[in-house]
């Protein structure tokens, strides 16, 4: 065992040695170690070099506040920018020190991350003395309690001290407390869980470290709590003096934690520099563990009496009224220089005492960990006694307890926790009994002398006086910022990068504010702090992504016929969350060949398409007709039962935003369809108008998209196919006219059949209950087999409708297009007093007759297919930019039936330009094209009846 690891003591398991590698060298530690404690046990202080100045830097703290000891984990899996003080030692761990910049793995992260929602009456953040009494008190009242602590075991500061409660070691009481909490079924304990954000209405987020080899490596807890107790503890503040950054300089409390928690001593000859009482305990404890204490230097004028006698008994040299003014040492501190510095003197005296040491413990007081309190919009004020910011004003249902609230002693922490827990329980309507608290017999604490920085006789600019070690930001940097005219703490922090590193200024934040205020010559009362922001400690992106990756990134919606399409080898197009078959290649066909074949089949024979994804809304109620008249541009109240009408919807601004068909089911009931991607938005929009503008209308809306599987049969032979599986249904053009619907039996199932067409061909849309979709589809395919029935996908559907000049909302429109622009004035009622969008058509810009209008484009070269998105310009030669643009190509395809390329385009005053030649961009060239009517095929509509 190394000379820095004690033979006994600490909470490590000496029977379970762990081998690890740091910077290429192998070491041994024990189960229960952190990487930092294991390194210190091996005598390793320097972990990294600093970010800007390249100076050696060592372990300074024992927890999340560590500013220096940054490591890159190499194994088990690369992870950048971890603090050695929070990395749990594991067998085979490999790490290297980092100069402030980490490295991402190039291999995919194999770990799994997930999240949990939890609700509770009282959330206690932190399981130190205050957190445990808060949790116990609340739990005893019957409250549903969650208590979370970042550490692997509960106890907080009690685990790192020699404190005794009721005469027994503190951890005995901790064990009892945990055991009691275990007995309450409504208490959830979350060790290893860092609460890192506190949001509105007591919504807190926490990260649970479940272990590198756990099924879920990390878990995000999303907790909604009625009451919150922040028992988040405090962070010790370092002191700014010349050479305060050398390895071997540790926070005094951290040294105590290494001793008691890990059985590790940081060095053999230790000096202490403090401005408050707590560092004396470190000196006494280390002395009792066999470490030589070189001296305790206290910037205050006298040593507090209880500590004076404890130190004197042990022969520890005390140097009140003094300060460390500088240090020396190459890779580690080897000497401090101490000068007298009485409280009323501006600077330490000129005479120095040199004290040799291999370790310097510093304590500048304690900063309550007010991060979450502040995130919750709790107020803060600067306490002159503590030299720190403390909670001042709580938001509703939030309170702090223990050292997070500025309590100085263990007894006070225990009491304040119990009080906060009781008040939280009462706020939940429960009755809290007065708690029976253990006694620590804490020594009273005398307030410290708030010292931000020790003036140096050798370094008047402050180049070696580090305010933020993580950023290598010095007093000299602050002086420069002030010299540049800066007066605001925010500016100076940005100028110097103070408190912006991985630790977000946990040790440096208050210190920086103090130094800045002092150098600006302002009073301490004027100290301001920057805003605390989530997360409290860094959280991996993957942990926040959780399970929402790959197919779970966004739900995948498929139709009941989906598997059939997969079996046919169809590629799919994403339409909103839906997967729609794009085309069905046969053999080695490419998309163009497949689409030409599919189009040909529909135009000359029969095709079949799965159109189940179309949004469907059931509109019911006595005022359904009136309602639809208001939301569609055309009149739906005149639609007869059994008939179907195409409908356009505009927003109130007059711009087209969805379209579909409207079928009148009976006097008070319609079935309307929407675009596949637009269904949810349309329903929401309809509900908005119905509920908030026209609540007098008696109408109910129900989404029935997934009630019906819908199959389109299109082509001159579609009637023949349908007749084979719907023998009882009258299908001829008089018995089942265009734009009507009827109920019947198709392939043995009840079906609603619509005679509507998106291709211009004779066509039927067969809707059956979703469950029977595939069965009916297969029956139709089988019935159509002798006729060469051809499944077709969205691409063919797009080509066919474009040949007919039918726009696709969202492709041929972009939110700036009116029905008139689309040439669909026929779908805008002139008879209705009002409908959504009507008023906007008469606005100056909307009423222009030279707006962009949907027209056809035929490239001069019939083999050419224009690019969708090509811009249309007037002249064949491009002038210098900016080039005036007439519009753009919205849809463009090769047509089987036209035997050429053709396109739809939105073109300025397009309808007045029919017959004109314009030019479209094609890479760096322009190609000529003729503007035509937007209907290319069967203008007279002769084909729809077959």
């Amino acid at each position: 065992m190394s000379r820095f690891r004690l033979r006994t003591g600490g909470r490590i398991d000496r029977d379970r040695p762990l081998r690890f590698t740091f910077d290429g060298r192998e070491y041994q530690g024990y189960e229960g170690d952190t990487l930092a404690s294991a390194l210190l046990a091996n005598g390793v202080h320097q972990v990294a070099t600093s970010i800007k100045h390249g100076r050696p830097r060592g372990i300074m703290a024992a927890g999340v506040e560590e500013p220096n000891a940054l490591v890159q984990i190499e194994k088990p899996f690369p992870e950048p920018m971890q603090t050695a003080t929070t990395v749990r030692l594991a067998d085979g761990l490999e790490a290297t020190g980092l100069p402030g910049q980490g490295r991402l793995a190039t291999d995919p992260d194999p770990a799994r991350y997930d999240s949990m929602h939890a609700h509770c009456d009282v959330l206690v953040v932190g399981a130190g003395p205050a957190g445990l009494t808060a949790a116990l008190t609340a739990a005893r009242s019957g409250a549903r309690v969650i208590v979370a602590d970042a550490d692997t075991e509960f106890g907080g500061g009690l685990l790192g001290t020699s404190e005794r409660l009721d005469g027994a070691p503190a951890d005995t009481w901790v064990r009892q407390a945990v055991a009691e909490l275990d007995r309450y079924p409504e208490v959830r304990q979350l060790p290893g869980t860092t609460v890192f954000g506190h949001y509105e209405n007591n919504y807190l987020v926490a990260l649970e470290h479940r272990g590198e080899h756990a099924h879920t490596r990390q878990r995000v807890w999303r907790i909604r709590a009625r009451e919150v107790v922040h028992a988040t503890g405090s962070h010790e503040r370092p002191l700014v003096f010349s050479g305060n950054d050398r390895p071997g300089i540790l926070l005094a409390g951290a040294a105590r934690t290494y001793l008691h928690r890990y059985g590790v001593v940081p060095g053999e000859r230790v000096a202490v520099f403090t401005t408050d009482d707590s560092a004396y305990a470190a000196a006494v404890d280390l002395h009792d563990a066999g470490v030589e204490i070189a001296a305790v230097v206290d910037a205050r004028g006298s040593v507090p009496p209880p500590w004076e006698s404890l130190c004197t008994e042990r022969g520890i040299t005390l140097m009140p009224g003094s300060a460390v003014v500088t240090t020396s040492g190459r890779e580690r501190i080897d000497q401090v220089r101490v000068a007298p510095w009485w409280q009323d003197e501006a600077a330490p005296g000129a005479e120095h005492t040199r004290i040799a040491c291999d370790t310097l413990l510093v304590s500048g007081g304690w900063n309550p960990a007010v991060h979450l309190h502040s995130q919750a919009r709790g107020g803060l004020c600067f306490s002159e006694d503590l030299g720190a910011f403390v909670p001042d004003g709580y938001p509703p249902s939030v309170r702090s307890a223990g050292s997070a609230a500025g309590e100085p002693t263990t007894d006070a922490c225990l009491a304040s926790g119990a009080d906060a827990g009781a008040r939280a329980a009462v706020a939940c309507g429960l009755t809290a009994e007065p708690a029976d608290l253990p006694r620590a017999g804490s020594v009273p604490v005398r307030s410290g002398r708030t010292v931000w920085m020790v003036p140096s006789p050798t370094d008047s600019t402050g180049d070696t006086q580090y305010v933020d070690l993580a950023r290598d930001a010095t007093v000299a940097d602050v002086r420069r910022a002030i010299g540049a005219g800066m007066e605001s703490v925010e500016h100076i922090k940005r100028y110097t990068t103070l408190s912006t590193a991985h630790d977000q200024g946990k040790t440096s934040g208050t210190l920086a504010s103090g130094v800045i205020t002092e150098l600006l010559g302002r009073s301490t009362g004027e100290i301001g702090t920057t805003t605390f922001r989530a997360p409290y400690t860094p959280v991996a992106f993957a942990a926040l992504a959780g399970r929402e990756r790959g197919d779970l990134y966004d739900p995948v919606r498929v139709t009941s016929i989906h598997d059939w399409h997969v079996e046919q080898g169809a590629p799919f197009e994403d339409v909103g969350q839906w997967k729609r078959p794009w085309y069905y290649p046969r053999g080695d066909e490419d998309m163009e060949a497949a689409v030409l074949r599919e189009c040909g089949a529909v135009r000359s024979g029969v095709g079949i398409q799965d159109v189940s994804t179309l949004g469907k809304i059931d509109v019911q109620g006595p005022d359904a007709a009136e309602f639809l008249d208001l939301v569609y541009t055309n009149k739906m109240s005149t639609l007869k039962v059994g008939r179907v009408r195409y409908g356009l919807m505009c927003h109130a601004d007059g711009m087209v935003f969805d379209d579909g068909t409207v079928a009148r089911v009976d006097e008070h009931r319609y079935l309307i369809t929407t675009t596949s991607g637009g269904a949810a938005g349309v329903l929401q929009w309809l509900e908005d108008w119905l509920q908030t503008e026209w609540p007098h209308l008696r109408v109910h809306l129900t989404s029935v998209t997934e009630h019906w599987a819908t199959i389109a049969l299109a082509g001159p032979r579609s009637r023949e196919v349908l007749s084979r599986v719907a023998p009882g249904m009258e299908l001829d053009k008089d018995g089942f006219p265009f734009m009507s619907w009827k109920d019947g039996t198709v392939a043995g199932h009840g079906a609603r059949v619509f005679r509507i067409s998106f291709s211009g061909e004779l066509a039927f849309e067969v809707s059956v209950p979703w469950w029977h979709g595939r069965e009916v589809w297969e029956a139709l395919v089988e019935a159509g087999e002798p006729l060469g029935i051809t499944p077709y996908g969205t691409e063919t559907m797009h080509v066919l409708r474009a040949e007919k000049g039918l726009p696709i909302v969202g492709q041929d429109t972009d939110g700036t297009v009116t029905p008139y622009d689309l040439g669909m004035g026929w779908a805008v009622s002139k008879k209705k007093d009002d409908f959504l969008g009507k008023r906007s058509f008469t606005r100056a810009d909307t009423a222009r007759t030279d707006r962009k209008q949907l027209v056809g484009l035929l490239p001069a070269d019939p083999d050419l297919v224009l690019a969708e998105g090509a811009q249309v310009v007037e002249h064949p030669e491009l002038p210098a930019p900016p080039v005036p643009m007439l519009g753009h190509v919205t849809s463009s395809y090769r047509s089987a039936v036209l035997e050429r390329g053709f396109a739809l385009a939105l073109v300025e005053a397009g309808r007045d330009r029919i017959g004109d030649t314009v030019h479209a961009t094609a890479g760096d060239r322009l190609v000529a094209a003729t503007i035509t009517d937007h209907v290319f095929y069967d203008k007279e509509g002769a084909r729809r009846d077959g």
Partner: protein
Amino acid sequence: MAPRTPGADLPEHPEWLWSSPEPKASYDAVIVGGGGHGLATAYYLAVNHGMTDIAVLEKGWLAGGNMARNTTIIRSNYLWDESAGLYEHSLKLWEGLEDELDYPLLFSQRGVLNLAHSLQDVRDSVRRVNANRLNGIDAEWLDPAQVAEVCPIIDTSEDLRYPVMGATWQPRAGIAKHDHVAWGFARALDRMGVDIVQNCEVTGFERVGDRIVGVETTRGPIRAGKVAMAAAGHSSVLADTLGLRLPVQSHPLQALVSELLEPVHPTVVMSNAVHVYVSQAHKGELVLGAGIDAYNSYSQRGAFHTIERQMAAAVELFPMFARAHVLRTWGGVVDVTPDASAIVGLTPFEGLYVNCGWGTGGFKATPGVGWCFAHTIANDGPHPLNAPFSLERFTTGALVDEHGASGVAH
């Protein structure tokens, strides 16, 4: 291991930046809002129009609003001619700004990729590329293999829920260091004798009839020949004091940074569908923007689920970011208009000018809008480049609908 010193090669700031004078009783012009836009406007008023009897009034610390909170993306690849004109003018000014201000702005033209994830995204992207090129803006359409060449860390495989189907690429786009930009303008203004007055909140206007003659502030009244508003998310609150309604809504917009990482990300990537935009700043931190929170708020913070969603998108597109860590999140207040385009121009009040509604896109416009807004103020009429961005367009219907190009933004 060779010690790298990330950020150590960053330039030092100049010795002197700006002073903090007491406000005078009167100025030729007062600019309300000491963010990037306010500073740039004052700068071009002085440089282009010879006006130096100006005060820039900032309610808090200089450039402490959205200027300090944005993700610093600079690009000009907007769809519509109106936007392209203004943003491209701005980009051209960016290209000379470091020299002009004699200040290191860390302007880095590393290009921007706007990813397409659906067939309609592809159509819209190609349309925008074509429009950009005709407007003289550098733009290319890249297929997935070319996307991978530009930015190898993007997952361009078919495995994504929404695979990358290509991207638009603007090589001249990039990033700059926001603080440096503000400080560079402030330093130049200080040298030209323009007053930068911090901790001076404008609480109202002084008017004579329909003419604005000054402002009321927390540091007393200040008379002014002209008053220009550049108050971003707080524009409505200011305009309300005059009974002037603006078609803007203030929303939280969040962003975040990771810790410092070795360089992995050579460019700027934006995706509207798999909602993410990310760059790697000079010191090595990944800078990511989240989506706008849906509700109105002046709280300068947003909801955490927005951040979680953002991280899901980031890891989906960039698998290597899995173990990067969110170091800090923050929020700004963005003022959003119905057509996602700004409002820059005259108001119904004589001597009062408005610049607002930049939503998520204000930073990149900083010099361009400063130039045009200064022209508007000096000439009491808009510059041709900002004429389309008038308040009147909401009445005529001549909107500049950039939802497609700005989407989530930037």
